[in-house]
Structures are given as C-alpha cells and as structure tokens.
C-alpha cells in the first residue's frame, strides 16, 4: 500500500517497487512477473482482480491511484481506462513491438497476448467435420438447444461488437434472435460454457480458445475440443490481453520496463507455450503453440480493438433488446 | 388415601441444592378455601407451581380431582389440569390487550361476556383496550386475577393475588370474589402474607415452613392452639411468659391459668396474645408503658413489667399515655404452653 507517495523519478532504479493492477489471473502472470523482479530487481506489488472492476477502480481513484501498471484481460477495459485519460502514452519503441492491429490507436496501451474466438464442442457427440465453418450455420434447427454462450462475458460482448462493425447492426440482431429462437443456453462465463459442454449439457459453445487448455489442465479427460473459425467469417476474432502505464504513476520508466519485459521473448513464450497456456504471442517473433492456426489466418474483422470498447454500451443495448442479458 | 380436590402426598422439589418443597403433604376438599401462610422462601409458590404442573416433583404424588396428575409414573401437562393460577409476577401477555389477556383461556363464544364479568369483578371495566405496560402495578395484578378466573376453573391457585392492591378495593374485591367462588363451589388455594385476610377468608389455613406444611387448621384453632411456638409467633404477636405447670394449671407472674391442652409438669412458656392484656391506668401499677404505636383502629403498647417486656394491643378507644404507670389485667380462660 501507500506506494503513491514516494517517487523515484524517472530512473528505473534498482530497488524500486511498482504497484500493478492485474485483471489477469495470478496463475497466468505471477511466474513471469517474478522473473521480471529477478532480472531487474524491481519489486512488484500486484493487486489481482476482475478487469472491469480494476478498470473502474482506476477511474474512481483518479489521480490518487497507487497503481503504476494496469494489466487487463481484454482491450475493452484498457480502452475504458485510456478513454478517461488514466493511461499514459507509451514510448514508440514499446508500441512498435506489436502489430498496429493489436495496440491502442491512442498509443496508451499495447496488446500482450491474443485469444481467438472459437466454437468449442463435445468430442463424444460431435466430430469436427460436422461443425459449420461459419457462425451463420448455427441458426440451423439441427443445433436447437445444443448451443451455449456467455452473454454477460466481456469477450463475448467484444465479439458481438466486432460483428456489428462488420456486418452491421441489423444482421447481427437477426443472428442473435435466430440463435435465441434456436433455444441457445446462457452461461455466466467461458468456463461455464466449457463445463456445460464437458457435461453434454450443450454440445457446442462460443468461447475464447485458451480456456480449453485450462480445462484440460484440471480435467485432462474432458471431452472438449476447439473448432477455429477462420477467414473472413465474423465469428473469427482475435481479442487481446494488454497492458498500459497509469498516467499518475511516479515510476513511469520502471513501468515501461515491465511492459517491455512482458513483450519480451520469455514472457511471450510463457503466455503461449507453457503448460495450460496457449494464447497467441503478439511480439518477439515467438510462434504460437502448435495446433493453433496462424494469426494471419484468423485475420478476422481486422477491427480495431481499441474501438471495440467504445461500442460496448450500444452492444449491451442490443443484447438487452434481444433479451440476452435480461 | 383419597381426598376431594387436591391431594399432595410426600412431595419434594429441589432446585440445585435448595430444597424448595420438602416432603410436603396437604389435602384440600372440593369447594374448600385454603389459605397458605408462610415465611418468604418457604416454598409456597413452588408448591402451587407443582400443583398447577409447571414443575415436576422429584418425589411424591399429586392428585387433582381424584386424578393422579404427577407421580413417578404419571404426568399430566398443565393445560390438561384445568387449574387457574395467578402468578406472583402476573405474567401478562405483553402483546395482547387487557381484554385479550383476560379472554385468552375462554372459548370464543363465551369470551366477550366472560371478559366483561371478570373485568368488572376486579374493578377494571373500561380498561379492556389498554396494554399491560399501560397499567399500574395493582391494575396489572387485577388483570392477572381476572384472567385466571375468566375460564371458570374448578380449582384456582392464587399467589398473593392482591399484594399490590389498596385495602379498600381489596376488601370489596375479596368479598365479591369469595362469594362468587363459594357460589360456584370453586376450590381455592390462596397464598397471602396478610394474616387477617387468611383468617377472615379461609376455611382452613395451612402453615408452611422450610418446604413443609407444619400445621393446617381452621383459623381460630390455629390462632389459639398453634402446634409450635414458631407457629404461635407467625400467626400473631404474642407474649411468652415463663411459667410452671402444676396439675391442670400453670402459674405465671400474671396469675394462674387453665391449660387449653394437657402439658407435662415443669417449666414452660405460656402464650398470651397482646389483645388479651388490658392496661389499666393505675399509679400503683407494677408496669410502665415504654412504647406506644398507633395502628388506626387500635393501639400497640410495649410495657415494662418487672424484668419482662409485654406487648398489649387495645382498641384506640382505651388510650393510655406513654410512660404512664399501669396495672396489667389478663383476659384469659385457658392458655397453651410450650416446653
């Protein structure tokens, strides 16, 4: 606590302590953050929490925030904080390490790792070939009552936002309504959907690809697999987890060092290849986990992720209208 | 053994170490009015609670209306005993109005009427809508009384039902009540600390001490022929003169009296009640008035006679001044003596 007073100015002096708000789970970032401390001697105090809540916290704290760095699950949270001017502009050096498509137009955050939207399915009741290659296919009666999705989950909402940007509001609405008519099942979050698939409560679900690997980690026997949507299909979307430096930080240099480190080889490998993790590396030329389609194949919407957040409210409106979130 | 209404037989009840009731025995006939007298803490309330069924006896048997209600092998719960009880601490239902309290034990159809009667009996008509906490102590007590009578029980146990009520009202209430109860041939057990009350109301007075019933007799008998010196003192003030028994009589400083009951020869204490000693102003008298207490209809004197201090109680019409010399004249046919 109380990291907010002392400021060691610009130099990332050995022995500095950074306060990090992490919307990403401890098990996902702690090892790599420890490495960072070992390397640089910069100690880290990490507050773990839910991305949206932490974003809201940063906004409420305003200029008195003790935080130096914000690591978030999804672009939306980062966009929101940046939108309130609570994130500082990152040095070009840092930004350039990531493809423009995965960083903030306003230069205030960068993506660190990527996740693809996929259709997860139960391998006991289905074979990959039986799955439609496009999300449009799931409005077919054959899937009646067999689909699960997490309408209240940020990643799903981002996905809907993306879809609206691509095919427009009306077609998106029609699709959502068609699914609803198809008796789609709602779950609180991605893991919930996966669990349901594993239990055959439903047979397919729209989720982020990497949850599967955590599920396998805890229950290897779980009969679930990912089906990637590729090409121009609106179902195909890469969302990112990213990071930014809090504008009120007194230790910006050290903070930037942390972000650079997260974009470095070790971190990127850790996110993408260490056991139970399979996110897309976004920098340092690390290659994705084998078995994952190349990022380039999921060019998806090519929508600007930063822009997604801005559309979130209207997307929620839509989801409310079509009765997904009420 | 069998006896009319209540039969308490060798009953004991202890709380932790305290033997509240200890091998007590008492029989009450149907329609009888028994007053329970005894020092504070002697077990009166406990005895009543045992009869009503709020305590289980440790030993002994209790029968009500020829029916065994408590015994080692039998138990009838309070609600099945049809005994009306007035608790020493009222125990009115705080959430019910006075009328609802009184009507609590009465069948709905009789209720309105029964409540009205009971309330006017205790002089509280018009208070029906009040809540207990809006009543004075005495009023609460009267409500409790009304509540216990409203269901017309065959047996009522009254634990100091008017200790907080002024004598005037008390007198009238008491008399009406006694009438009603006798008329309805209700059996009554009354705990009271007012001897006069006990004497004037009761057919028999039961005297309790340390959890035992030590004497149960009609008032006058109890007053004139107490079985023990303690009993004698408890039911009324008294002078105990040293005396010696000779033949059927006993000699004392105040003269020689016949014995109301044969006593073995030798030193005894003789009971003479204060009202049996008249004080005659007499400058040659051997006694002096050393204390005088006005008590309304009569006056209480303390007189020094030789080395003995005697007490005398005379109607306030026979006034004697403090410090006056008097001669003491006993009005006694026969006295009872205690070894």
């Amino acid at each position, binding site marked *: 606590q109380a990291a907010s007073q002392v400021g060691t100015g610009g130099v990332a002096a050995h022995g500095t302590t950074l306060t990090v708000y992490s919307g990403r789970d401890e098990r996902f970032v702690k090892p790599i953050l420890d490495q960072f401390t070992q390397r640089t001697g910069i100690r880290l105090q990490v507050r773990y929490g839910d991305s*949206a809540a932490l974003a809201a916290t940063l906004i409420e704290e305003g200029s008195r925030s003790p935080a130096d760095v914000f690591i978030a699950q999804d672009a939306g949270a980062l966009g929101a904080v940046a939108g309130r001017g609570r994130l500082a502009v990152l040095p070009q050096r840092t930004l350039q390490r990531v493809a423009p498509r995965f960083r903030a137009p306003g230069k205030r955050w960068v993506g660190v790792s990527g996740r693809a939207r996929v259709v997860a399915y139960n391998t006991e009741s289905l074979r990959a070939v039986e799955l439609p290659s496009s999300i449009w296919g799931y409005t077919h009666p054959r899937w009646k009552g067999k689909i699960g999705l997490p309408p209240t989950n940020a990643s799903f909402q981002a996905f809907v936002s993306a879809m609206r940007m691509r095919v427009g509001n009306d077609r998106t609405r029609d699709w959502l309504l068609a699914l609803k008519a198809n008796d789609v099942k709602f779950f609180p979050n991605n893991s919930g959907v996966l669990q349901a698939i594993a239990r055959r409560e439903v047979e397919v679900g729209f989720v982020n690809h990497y949850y599967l690997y955590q599920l396998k980690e805890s229950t290897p026997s779980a009969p679930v697999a990912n089906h990637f949507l590729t090409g121009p299909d609106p179902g195909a979307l890469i969302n990112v987890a990213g990071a930014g430096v809090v504008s009120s930080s007194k230790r910006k240099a050290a903070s930037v060092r942390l972000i650079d480190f997260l974009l470095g080889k070790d971190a990127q490998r850790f996110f993408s290849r260490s056991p139970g993790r399979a996110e897309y590396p976004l920098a340092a030329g690390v290659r994705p986990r084998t078995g994952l389609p190349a990022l380039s194949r999921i060019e998806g919407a090519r929508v600007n992720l930063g822009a997604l957040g801005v559309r979130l409210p209207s997307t929620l409106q839509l989801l409310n209208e079509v009765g997904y979130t009420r | 053994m069998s006896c009319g209404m209540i039969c308490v037989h060798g009953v004991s009840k202890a709380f932790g170490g305290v033997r509240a009731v200890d091998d007590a025995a008492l029989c009450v006939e149907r329609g009888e009015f028994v007053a329970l007298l005894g020092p504070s803490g002697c077990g009166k309330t406990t005895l009543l609670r045992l009869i009503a069924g709020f305590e289980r006896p440790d030993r002994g048997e209790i029968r009500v209306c020829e029916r065994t209600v408590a015994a080692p092998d039998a138990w009838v719960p309070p609600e099945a005993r049809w005994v009306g009880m007035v608790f020493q601490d009222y125990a009115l239902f705080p959430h019910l109005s006075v009328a609802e309290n009184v009507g609590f034990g009465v069948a709905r159809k009789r209720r309105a009427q029964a409540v009205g009667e009971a309330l006017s009996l205790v002089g509280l008509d018009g208070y029906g809508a009040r809540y207990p906490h809006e009543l004075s102590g005495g009023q609460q007590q009267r409500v409790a009384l009304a509540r216990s009578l409203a269901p017309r029980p065959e047996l009522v146990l009254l634990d100091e039902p008017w200790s907080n009520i002024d004598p005037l009202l008390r007198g009238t209430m008491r008399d009406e009540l006694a009438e009603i109860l006798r008329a309805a041939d209700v059996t009554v057990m009354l705990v009271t600390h007012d001897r006069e009350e006990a004497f004037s109301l009761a057919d028999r007075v039961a005297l309790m001490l340390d959890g035992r019933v030590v004497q149960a007799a009609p008032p006058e008998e109890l007053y004139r022929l107490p079985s023990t010196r303690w009993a004698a003192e408890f039911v009324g003030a008294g002078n105990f003169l040293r005396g010696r028994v000779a033949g059927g009589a006993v000699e004392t400083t105040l003269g020689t009296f016949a014995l109301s009951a044969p006593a073995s020869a030798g030193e005894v204490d003789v009971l003479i009640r204060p009202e049996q000693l008249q004080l005659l102003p007499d400058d040659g008298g051997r006694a002096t008035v050393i204390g005088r207490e006005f008590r309304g209809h009569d006056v209480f004197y303390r007189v020094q006679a030789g080395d003995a201090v005697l007490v005398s109680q005379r109607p306030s019409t026979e006034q004697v001044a403090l410090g006056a010399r008097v001669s003491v004249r006993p009005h006694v046919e026969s006295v009872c003596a205690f070894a």
Partner: protein
Amino acid sequence: MSRPAARGRASLLLTAPALLTAGAVLLPLAYLVVRSATAGRDAWGVLDAATGRLVLDTLLLVAIVVAVAAAVGVPLAWLVTRTDLPGRRVWAVAFALPLVIPSYVAALALLGALGPRGFLQEILGRAFGVERLPEIYGLPGSVLALTLSTYPYVYLLVAAALRDLDPALEEAARGLGRGGWHVFRSVTLPALRPSIAAGGLLVGLYVLSDFGVVSLMQYPALTRAIYLSYNALFDRDPAVVLGLVLVALTALVLVAESRFRRSARYHRTTASSARRAARVELGRWRWPAVGACSALLAVFLLLPVSVLVYWTWQAVPLGRPIDVAWRAAFNSALAAALAAAVAVAAALPVVYLAHHRPAWWTRLLERACFTANALPGIVVALSLVFFGARYGGVAYQTLALLVFAYVVRFLPQALAASGAALQTVNPRYEEAARGLGRGPLTTLALVTAPLVRSGLLAGAALVFLSALKELPATLLLRPIGFDTLATEIWQATAFADFSAAAPSALLLIAVSAPYVYLLVGRHGRLGGPSAG
C-alpha cells in the same frame, strides 16, 4: 410494568457514535448521488418498461425467498432451542453453517448436483434412464440457492430471541388450558415477531444485493443489470441509476418490515427475571423431527459440501497437490472477526437510540443504516475506493479500510440482530441502573448489552460469516497480497477449476464452524442470565 425509559435528551456520548456510524454506512449512497448528479440525462433512459419488469421479477424473488427462509428458519430455531431434539447442540451449529457457503459456490454446487447432467441426473439416468430433471435454471434454482444461503439469518435471530424469551408467559398460557401449538401461535410467535421481521429484512436485502446466484441461475434480477452496465466501462451511469432504483426497493422492504413488526410492545412486562424455559418434549414427534432436520441439512449443507468434496477429490488422480490455503484462512478469520467486533460495537448505539430513545430522528437514523445494504458489493466497493482514495490517506487499501468496508456492508446484520433483541428488554432494568447513579453509557455496557447478549452474538455471527465470504470489496480494498479464502475461491472458480476452488470452500466452512459454535451453539442452558 414497563414504559419507555425517561425520554431524556439522548446523551451526546450515544448520539455522536451513532451519527458517525450512520454516516459511514451511507457512504455508498452518497457515492451514488454524487455519480447520478454527474450522470447524463440519457442515463435515466434505463428506467424503461424492461426495467419495470426487472423490478417486478426482483420483488417476486425477494418475496418468495423471504417466505421460504422464514418457513424454514423459525421451526428450526424452535426445535434446537426449545425441544428435547436429540443432538440439539450439533444441529444448532450445523444449521447456521450454510451461511458461510458463498452463494455463488452454493449455486455452482447445486447446478453440479441438480442441474441438467448433474450428479442426480446421472444417478437417476443410470438407474431409471431419466433424461431430464425439472428445470433448475431461473426461479427454482435461484430460490433454492438463495434460501440455502439466507435462511440462517432468520434461524439465528429467532433462536436468539427464543433463548431470551420469558418462559413465564408460555406457562401462563398453558395454565389457561392452551396446548403446545396454540401457545406457540398465540404467545411465542408474536413475541418472536421482531426477530422474524429482522431476519426477513436481512434475507430480503441479501436477495436484492446478490449477484452470484442470479447470474449463475440466469434469473433476471436488478443486480444482474447493474453488473452488466458496470462492465460497460465507458458509460456506467445507467448502473448508478439502477443502483438508486435498488435503494428505492430497499426502502420498500424496510417499510414492509416495520409494518410486520407492528407497534405492540414486546419487552417483558413482568418482574420475573430470566428463568430457564422448560424443554418441550417431542414425544413421538422426536424422530420425525430428527428426520426433517436431517433432510433439510442434507440439502442445505451436505449436498453442497459433498459436491465440494467430490471436486476436491477429483484433483487427486491428477496428482495435483490439494493446497490448503492456511494463510488465507487466517487472513479471512482475522478480518472477519475484526469486522464482527467493530460492527456490533457500532450498531449498539444506533439501535439503542432507536428503541430506547424513541424519536423521529433516532428511528430515521436506524432505518437509514439499512438503505445502502441492498447495493451490490461492487457498488459499495467502488464507493469506498472513491472516498478511500480521496480522503483515506495512508489507510487506503489497508486492513483497516477493508474491515471498515465489511462494517459498511454488513452493519445492518448487526443492527437487525441487536435491535430485535433490544426490543425485548424491559426498560425498567436501565432505569434501575440509572437510579443507582450509572450514566447512560455505563448502563448500556453493564446492563443493556449483557441482557441482549444472545442478540449481539447472533449479530456478530452474521457479520463474521458474511465478511468471511465477501468478495468484491475484498478484491479492491484488501492490502496487496492479503489473500482470503473468498479470493482464493474466486480465483479458482474464475477458471471453472473447481477442484482447486473446493478445498478453499471447504476450509471456509471448517474455519467458521468453531466460531459459529462459540457464538450460537454454546448456550448450554438456553436462556437464563448466565447463559454460556
């Protein structure tokens, strides 16, 4: 005979702390007002027909859960306090335990057990080829899960009241020829009204504020909408407006409660000091009663626990260490215990004023302390972030602030509990103390507090257990690195890694059990002055 204590000016020594407390508890409300003031006018657009339906659905849920919780809690309380039920003490503790199962864990467990493809379905499926169970999502599941985690409010408060109830009244009733049931209905139950009302109030507020269950069970409740628009980070104004709607509903519930509590006086009117109530002998009902208790406990405690155990045990074959979070357990217990102590201390002056210095402002003060309670944890948490960061200084994100947050969130539970108890205290006792030269505060400490002991303990128990499982505020306000069992569970469940979540959840129950015993189970002589 009892009348209100002298309406002397409420001494400043009481008023000051009371006002302070109220102020603290109202912070979240203040925050909402501040925010709504800056909210764009289109934020109020959320108040549309759909929201209207939402409100109705929410109220429906509240009504049902309160009713069920009361129906379950009151009889249980009576059984364990007033009867010769075999193993009373054990039951007494066991029935309080479901309170510590975080409602989202409970919901998960219930889904795992009763959901489509849950254990039950598997079993029945194997045995009788049952394909579908009755739908659990929506109302049924929500009611079940919420009842599970809220009936202890009623149960604990009513049990406390029963312990303090003057047996003389029941005796009088029986003496008037009224049998057990009639006595219970016409004498005992009315005397319990305050505590039933208080318990119901807490249940209602909890249901209003709960998010975990309704989101898992997919019930359209107001909180769900609030959370959603909170996640709509760019425009959280609608959330604020909905929050105010929630406050309005709270006011509604509060009114309902006071209506139910009626104005009649409940404190003993007699001089009788506490005597031990005679146990009701169940006789041939003994074993049926045990059966019923077992059944309830099976659903409310055994079922979730066994699901948790199953998940824990799942991890074994993976050779994954079942890591027991002792540290977190300690932290949880510490913070919760502190919160309980502070909350009860803070609540006492408020309820005391409300009940023993009756005046419009004292009552208002007490009522006001409830208004913020129905707000979802996240709102409370953010409001404290808002004020903490601005005015908290070095205290921000320290244990102190965390405890403060718990108190702010759960004070009403202490209020309700001690308030219900306080109403049954005969003011005559306090007068006696004053007459013997003791000031109001001393009297409060030496006479009143001990008299409402079981009420206070119940309140402490409630706060303690609620704080143990509190999540949103804990996440945002705890000192960095200060893990609690709740955060551990959250971490695990966030990734549906139940086998990792389960041990912590079990530990949560284990940790709280002894406290619960200490607080509610220990009354060897239920009732009586030297109880415990």
